Protein backbone atom coordinates (compact mmCIF):
# COMPACT_ATOMS: atom_id res chain seq x y z
CA UNK A 1 0.00 0.00 0.00
CA UNK A 2 1.43 3.39 -0.87
CA UNK A 3 4.19 4.25 -3.25
CA UNK A 4 7.70 3.03 -4.12
CA UNK A 5 10.75 2.99 -1.86
CA UNK A 6 12.24 6.21 -3.25
CA UNK A 7 9.11 8.20 -2.44
CA UNK A 8 8.99 6.76 1.07
CA UNK A 9 12.64 7.61 1.82
CA UNK A 10 12.38 11.13 0.44
CA UNK A 11 9.22 11.70 2.47
CA UNK A 12 10.98 10.61 5.63
CA UNK A 13 13.72 13.16 5.00
CA UNK A 14 11.53 16.05 3.98
CA UNK A 15 8.50 15.80 6.28
CA UNK A 16 10.21 17.38 9.30
CA UNK A 17 11.17 20.44 7.26
CA UNK A 18 7.63 20.83 5.92
CA UNK A 19 6.18 20.81 9.44
CA UNK A 20 8.81 23.25 10.66
CA UNK A 21 8.07 25.64 7.80
CA UNK A 22 4.32 25.47 8.43
CA UNK A 23 4.72 26.19 12.15
CA UNK A 24 7.04 29.11 11.34
CA UNK A 25 4.50 30.69 9.00
CA UNK A 26 1.75 30.37 11.63
CA UNK A 27 3.76 31.74 14.55
CA UNK A 28 5.40 34.69 12.78
CA UNK A 29 2.21 35.80 11.06
CA UNK A 30 2.31 39.29 12.47
CA UNK A 31 5.90 40.03 11.44
CA UNK A 32 6.40 38.41 8.02
CA UNK A 33 3.91 37.44 5.30
CA UNK A 34 1.74 34.48 6.17
CA UNK A 35 -0.66 33.97 9.02
CA UNK A 36 -2.99 31.25 10.19
CA UNK A 37 -4.57 30.29 6.87
CA UNK A 38 -1.59 29.45 4.64
CA UNK A 39 0.27 27.88 7.57
CA UNK A 40 -2.62 25.57 8.38
CA UNK A 41 -2.91 24.46 4.77
CA UNK A 42 0.86 23.77 4.58
CA UNK A 43 0.62 21.50 7.64
CA UNK A 44 -2.40 19.72 6.15
CA UNK A 45 -0.45 19.17 2.92
CA UNK A 46 2.30 17.56 4.98
CA UNK A 47 -0.15 15.04 6.43
CA UNK A 48 -1.60 14.41 2.94
CA UNK A 49 1.94 13.66 1.72
CA UNK A 50 2.33 11.05 4.47
CA UNK A 51 -0.98 9.52 3.45
CA UNK A 52 -0.12 9.39 -0.27
CA UNK A 53 3.33 7.89 0.32
CA UNK A 54 2.60 5.36 3.06
CA UNK A 55 -1.08 4.50 2.76
CA UNK A 56 -4.05 5.71 4.71
CA UNK A 57 -3.60 3.42 7.72
CA UNK A 58 -0.25 4.93 8.66
CA UNK A 59 -1.56 8.48 8.30
CA UNK A 60 -4.69 7.74 10.31
CA UNK A 61 -2.40 6.23 12.93
CA UNK A 62 -0.66 9.59 13.30
CA UNK A 63 -3.91 11.54 13.57
CA UNK A 64 -7.00 9.40 14.01
CA UNK A 65 -10.48 10.55 13.08
CA UNK A 66 -11.47 11.15 16.67
CA UNK A 67 -8.45 13.35 17.39
CA UNK A 68 -9.06 15.32 14.19
CA UNK A 69 -12.67 16.05 15.15
CA UNK A 70 -11.58 17.19 18.62
CA UNK A 71 -8.87 19.47 17.18
CA UNK A 72 -11.27 20.95 14.64
CA UNK A 73 -13.91 21.86 17.19
CA UNK A 74 -11.46 23.16 19.75
CA UNK A 75 -9.82 25.40 17.13
CA UNK A 76 -13.14 26.98 16.27
CA UNK A 77 -14.17 27.31 19.93
CA UNK A 78 -10.78 28.76 20.81
CA UNK A 79 -11.16 31.50 18.21
CA UNK A 80 -14.61 32.32 19.57
CA UNK A 81 -13.26 32.33 23.14
CA UNK A 82 -10.58 34.87 22.16
CA UNK A 83 -13.33 37.03 20.68
CA UNK A 84 -15.45 36.80 23.82
CA UNK A 85 -12.46 37.64 26.03
CA UNK A 86 -12.48 41.05 24.38
CA UNK A 87 -15.29 41.88 26.78
CA UNK A 88 -12.59 42.23 29.44
CA UNK A 89 -11.59 45.43 27.70
CA UNK A 90 -15.12 46.59 27.15
CA UNK A 91 -16.26 45.71 23.61
CA UNK A 92 -16.59 42.51 21.63
CA UNK A 93 -13.27 41.48 20.04
CA UNK A 94 -11.19 44.24 21.59
CA UNK A 95 -7.46 43.58 21.53
CA UNK A 96 -7.10 43.72 25.29
CA UNK A 97 -3.47 42.66 25.54
CA UNK A 98 -2.26 45.90 23.99
CA UNK A 99 0.58 46.52 21.53
CA UNK A 100 3.88 45.33 22.91
CA UNK A 101 7.31 46.38 21.66
CA UNK A 102 7.22 46.27 17.90
CA UNK A 103 9.20 43.78 15.74
CA UNK A 104 9.37 41.20 18.52
CA UNK A 105 7.57 37.87 18.69
CA UNK A 106 5.63 38.84 21.79
CA UNK A 107 3.73 41.82 20.44
CA UNK A 108 0.43 42.76 18.82
CA UNK A 109 -1.90 41.42 21.47
CA UNK A 110 -3.80 38.25 20.82
CA UNK A 111 -2.98 38.00 17.10
CA UNK A 112 -0.58 35.13 17.68
CA UNK A 113 -3.16 33.10 19.64
CA UNK A 114 -5.79 33.68 16.98
CA UNK A 115 -3.33 32.49 14.31
CA UNK A 116 -2.61 29.31 16.27
CA UNK A 117 -6.33 28.56 16.70
CA UNK A 118 -7.02 29.09 13.00
CA UNK A 119 -4.00 26.98 12.00
CA UNK A 120 -5.06 24.01 14.15
CA UNK A 121 -8.60 24.22 12.82
CA UNK A 122 -7.67 24.29 9.16
CA UNK A 123 -5.06 21.53 9.53
CA UNK A 124 -7.48 19.01 10.99
CA UNK A 125 -10.47 19.83 8.82
CA UNK A 126 -8.65 19.78 5.47
CA UNK A 127 -6.91 16.50 6.33
CA UNK A 128 -10.13 14.78 7.39
CA UNK A 129 -12.01 15.92 4.28
CA UNK A 130 -9.25 14.56 2.06
CA UNK A 131 -9.40 11.19 3.85
CA UNK A 132 -13.18 11.14 3.26
CA UNK A 133 -12.70 11.91 -0.45
CA UNK A 134 -10.19 9.07 -0.84
CA UNK A 135 -12.42 6.56 0.97
CA UNK A 136 -15.44 7.61 -1.07
CA UNK A 137 -13.54 7.31 -4.34
CA UNK A 138 -12.52 3.81 -3.37
CA UNK A 139 -16.19 3.00 -2.72
CA UNK A 140 -17.10 4.18 -6.23
CA UNK A 141 -14.40 1.96 -7.74
CA UNK A 142 -15.65 -1.06 -5.79
CA UNK A 143 -19.26 -0.53 -6.82
CA UNK A 144 -18.24 -0.08 -10.46
CA UNK A 145 -16.30 -3.38 -10.36
CA UNK A 146 -19.25 -5.14 -8.71
CA UNK A 147 -21.71 -3.96 -11.37
CA UNK A 148 -19.31 -5.01 -14.14
CA UNK A 149 -19.06 -8.49 -12.62
CA UNK A 150 -22.85 -8.74 -12.45
CA UNK A 151 -23.14 -7.80 -16.12
CA UNK A 152 -20.49 -10.36 -17.08
CA UNK A 153 -22.23 -13.06 -15.05
CA UNK A 154 -25.62 -12.34 -16.55
CA UNK A 155 -24.36 -12.33 -20.14
Amino acid at each position, binding site marked *: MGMSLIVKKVTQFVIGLIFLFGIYIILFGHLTPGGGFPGGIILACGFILVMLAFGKDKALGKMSRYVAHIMDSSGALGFLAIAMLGYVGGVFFLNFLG*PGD*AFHLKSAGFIIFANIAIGVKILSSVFIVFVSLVLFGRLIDESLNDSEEEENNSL
Partner: protein
Amino acid sequence: MLIFYMLLGIMILGSIVAIETRNLLSSVISVGIVGYILSILFLMLGAPDIAITQVVVEILVLVVLIRATISADNTAIEKHRDTFAVVASLVFLGLFFVFASYAFLEMPQFGESLLQTSQHYLDNGLAETGASNMVTAILLDYRAYDTLGEATVIFVSILGAIVLLRRTGRKRGCKSKEGTGK
Protein backbone atom coordinates in the same frame (compact mmCIF):
# COMPACT_ATOMS: atom_id res chain seq x y z
CA MET B 1 4.52 47.01 -16.80
CA LEU B 2 5.02 44.93 -19.91
CA ILE B 3 5.53 41.83 -17.79
CA PHE B 4 1.96 42.15 -16.45
CA TYR B 5 0.48 42.04 -19.94
CA MET B 6 2.64 39.07 -20.90
CA LEU B 7 1.70 37.05 -17.83
CA LEU B 8 -1.99 37.85 -18.31
CA GLY B 9 -1.71 36.77 -21.95
CA ILE B 10 -0.23 33.42 -20.91
CA MET B 11 -3.04 33.01 -18.38
CA ILE B 12 -5.68 33.64 -21.06
CA LEU B 13 -4.03 31.09 -23.38
CA GLY B 14 -3.86 28.54 -20.59
CA SER B 15 -7.52 28.93 -19.74
CA ILE B 16 -8.49 28.58 -23.42
CA VAL B 17 -6.65 25.24 -23.39
CA ALA B 18 -8.36 24.24 -20.13
CA ILE B 19 -11.82 24.99 -21.50
CA GLU B 20 -11.60 23.48 -24.96
CA THR B 21 -9.55 20.31 -24.58
CA ARG B 22 -11.34 16.96 -24.52
CA ASN B 23 -9.08 15.10 -22.13
CA LEU B 24 -10.06 15.83 -18.51
CA LEU B 25 -6.60 15.32 -17.06
CA SER B 26 -5.05 17.89 -19.45
CA SER B 27 -7.62 20.49 -18.59
CA VAL B 28 -7.04 20.03 -14.85
CA ILE B 29 -3.29 20.45 -15.37
CA SER B 30 -3.89 23.61 -17.43
CA VAL B 31 -5.93 25.08 -14.59
CA GLY B 32 -2.96 24.35 -12.35
CA ILE B 33 -0.64 26.27 -14.68
CA VAL B 34 -3.02 29.25 -14.67
CA GLY B 35 -2.99 29.23 -10.87
CA TYR B 36 0.80 29.18 -10.60
CA ILE B 37 1.22 32.06 -13.06
CA LEU B 38 -1.41 33.94 -11.06
CA SER B 39 0.69 33.58 -7.92
CA ILE B 40 3.77 34.96 -9.73
CA LEU B 41 1.60 37.89 -10.83
CA PHE B 42 0.50 38.46 -7.22
CA LEU B 43 4.15 38.55 -6.13
CA MET B 44 4.96 41.19 -8.73
CA LEU B 45 1.98 43.29 -7.71
CA GLY B 46 3.38 43.62 -4.18
CA ALA B 47 1.28 41.04 -2.33
CA PRO B 48 3.53 38.29 -0.87
CA ASP B 49 0.87 37.14 1.62
CA ILE B 50 -1.58 36.41 -1.18
CA ALA B 51 1.10 34.69 -3.28
CA ILE B 52 1.87 32.18 -0.50
CA THR B 53 -1.82 31.46 0.04
CA GLN B 54 -2.51 31.12 -3.70
CA VAL B 55 0.32 28.60 -4.26
CA VAL B 56 -0.73 26.37 -1.39
CA VAL B 57 -4.46 26.49 -2.20
CA GLU B 58 -3.64 25.79 -5.85
CA ILE B 59 -1.81 22.60 -4.89
CA LEU B 60 -4.81 21.44 -2.86
CA VAL B 61 -7.22 22.26 -5.71
CA LEU B 62 -5.08 20.23 -8.12
CA VAL B 63 -4.92 17.20 -5.81
CA VAL B 64 -8.68 17.26 -5.10
CA LEU B 65 -9.63 17.65 -8.78
CA ILE B 66 -7.27 14.90 -9.93
CA ARG B 67 -8.74 12.63 -7.26
CA ALA B 68 -12.23 13.38 -8.54
CA THR B 69 -11.44 12.81 -12.22
CA ILE B 70 -9.38 9.65 -11.76
CA SER B 71 -12.00 8.02 -9.58
CA ALA B 72 -14.49 8.49 -12.40
CA ASP B 73 -12.15 6.42 -14.59
CA ASN B 74 -13.10 7.87 -17.96
CA THR B 75 -10.86 10.72 -19.00
CA ALA B 76 -12.50 11.63 -22.27
CA ILE B 77 -15.68 13.46 -23.14
CA GLU B 78 -17.41 11.99 -26.13
CA LYS B 79 -20.80 13.58 -26.58
CA HIS B 80 -21.74 16.04 -29.33
CA ARG B 81 -21.67 19.73 -28.52
CA ASP B 82 -24.82 21.79 -28.22
CA THR B 83 -24.51 24.50 -30.86
CA PHE B 84 -27.44 26.60 -29.74
CA ALA B 85 -26.05 27.03 -26.23
CA VAL B 86 -22.58 27.90 -27.53
CA VAL B 87 -23.78 30.50 -30.04
CA ALA B 88 -26.28 32.08 -27.65
CA SER B 89 -23.76 32.38 -24.83
CA LEU B 90 -21.10 33.83 -27.16
CA VAL B 91 -23.52 36.49 -28.42
CA PHE B 92 -24.64 37.39 -24.92
CA LEU B 93 -21.10 37.55 -23.53
CA GLY B 94 -19.93 39.66 -26.47
CA LEU B 95 -22.66 42.21 -25.80
CA PHE B 96 -21.78 42.14 -22.10
CA PHE B 97 -18.15 42.88 -22.92
CA VAL B 98 -18.99 45.82 -25.18
CA PHE B 99 -21.29 47.49 -22.73
CA ALA B 100 -19.11 46.83 -19.68
CA SER B 101 -16.11 48.46 -21.32
CA TYR B 102 -17.97 51.77 -21.01
CA ALA B 103 -17.96 51.25 -17.25
CA PHE B 104 -14.23 50.56 -17.25
CA LEU B 105 -13.57 53.98 -18.79
CA GLU B 106 -14.70 55.58 -15.53
CA MET B 107 -12.14 53.80 -13.40
CA PRO B 108 -8.93 55.54 -12.27
CA GLN B 109 -5.71 54.87 -14.14
CA PHE B 110 -3.90 51.61 -13.37
CA GLY B 111 -1.18 52.48 -10.86
CA GLU B 112 -2.90 55.31 -9.00
CA SER B 113 -4.87 53.79 -6.18
CA LEU B 114 -7.40 55.77 -4.19
CA LEU B 115 -6.29 54.79 -0.67
CA GLN B 116 -8.83 56.75 1.33
CA THR B 117 -9.57 54.22 4.07
CA SER B 118 -6.19 52.54 4.02
CA GLN B 119 -4.30 55.77 4.66
CA HIS B 120 -5.42 55.62 8.27
CA TYR B 121 -4.41 51.96 8.52
CA LEU B 122 -0.97 52.62 7.04
CA ASP B 123 -0.24 55.67 9.18
CA ASN B 124 -1.36 54.38 12.57
CA GLY B 125 -1.15 50.61 12.16
CA LEU B 126 2.13 50.00 13.96
CA ALA B 127 1.34 52.33 16.86
CA GLU B 128 -2.17 51.09 17.52
CA THR B 129 -1.78 47.35 17.04
CA GLY B 130 1.93 46.63 17.35
CA ALA B 131 2.01 44.29 14.34
CA SER B 132 4.39 45.12 11.53
CA ASN B 133 2.56 43.12 8.87
CA MET B 134 -0.23 45.48 7.86
CA VAL B 135 -2.35 42.79 6.19
CA THR B 136 -2.46 40.65 9.34
CA ALA B 137 -3.18 43.75 11.42
CA ILE B 138 -6.20 44.51 9.23
CA LEU B 139 -7.34 40.86 9.15
CA LEU B 140 -7.12 40.17 12.86
CA ASP B 141 -7.45 43.52 14.56
CA TYR B 142 -9.28 46.16 12.57
CA ARG B 143 -11.58 43.75 10.72
CA ALA B 144 -11.55 40.69 12.94
CA TYR B 145 -15.30 40.18 12.58
CA ASP B 146 -14.85 39.27 8.91
CA THR B 147 -12.27 36.65 9.90
CA LEU B 148 -14.77 35.17 12.35
CA GLY B 149 -17.29 34.93 9.50
CA GLU B 150 -14.70 33.28 7.27
CA ALA B 151 -13.81 30.70 9.91
CA THR B 152 -17.52 29.88 10.23
CA VAL B 153 -17.89 29.45 6.45
CA ILE B 154 -14.92 27.08 6.28
CA PHE B 155 -16.20 25.09 9.23
CA VAL B 156 -19.71 24.68 7.77
CA SER B 157 -18.56 23.84 4.23
CA ILE B 158 -16.12 21.15 5.38
CA LEU B 159 -18.76 19.75 7.73
CA GLY B 160 -21.18 19.58 4.79
CA ALA B 161 -18.61 17.80 2.62
CA ILE B 162 -17.90 15.20 5.32
CA VAL B 163 -21.63 14.55 5.78
CA LEU B 164 -22.15 14.19 2.02
CA LEU B 165 -19.33 11.66 1.72
CA ARG B 166 -20.56 9.24 4.37
CA ARG B 167 -20.71 5.62 3.41
CA THR B 168 -24.25 4.75 4.38
CA GLY B 169 -27.36 6.78 3.88
CA ARG B 170 -30.05 6.96 6.49
CA LYS B 171 -32.46 4.49 4.91
CA ARG B 172 -30.11 1.58 4.31
CA GLY B 173 -28.87 0.98 7.82
CA CYS B 174 -27.96 -2.67 7.26
CA LYS B 175 -24.75 -2.09 5.26
CA SER B 176 -21.52 -2.70 7.14
CA LYS B 177 -20.20 0.34 8.93
CA GLU B 178 -16.52 -0.45 9.26
CA GLY B 179 -14.53 2.65 9.87
CA THR B 180 -17.18 5.29 9.30
CA GLY B 181 -17.18 8.32 11.50
CA LYS B 182 -18.53 8.30 14.99
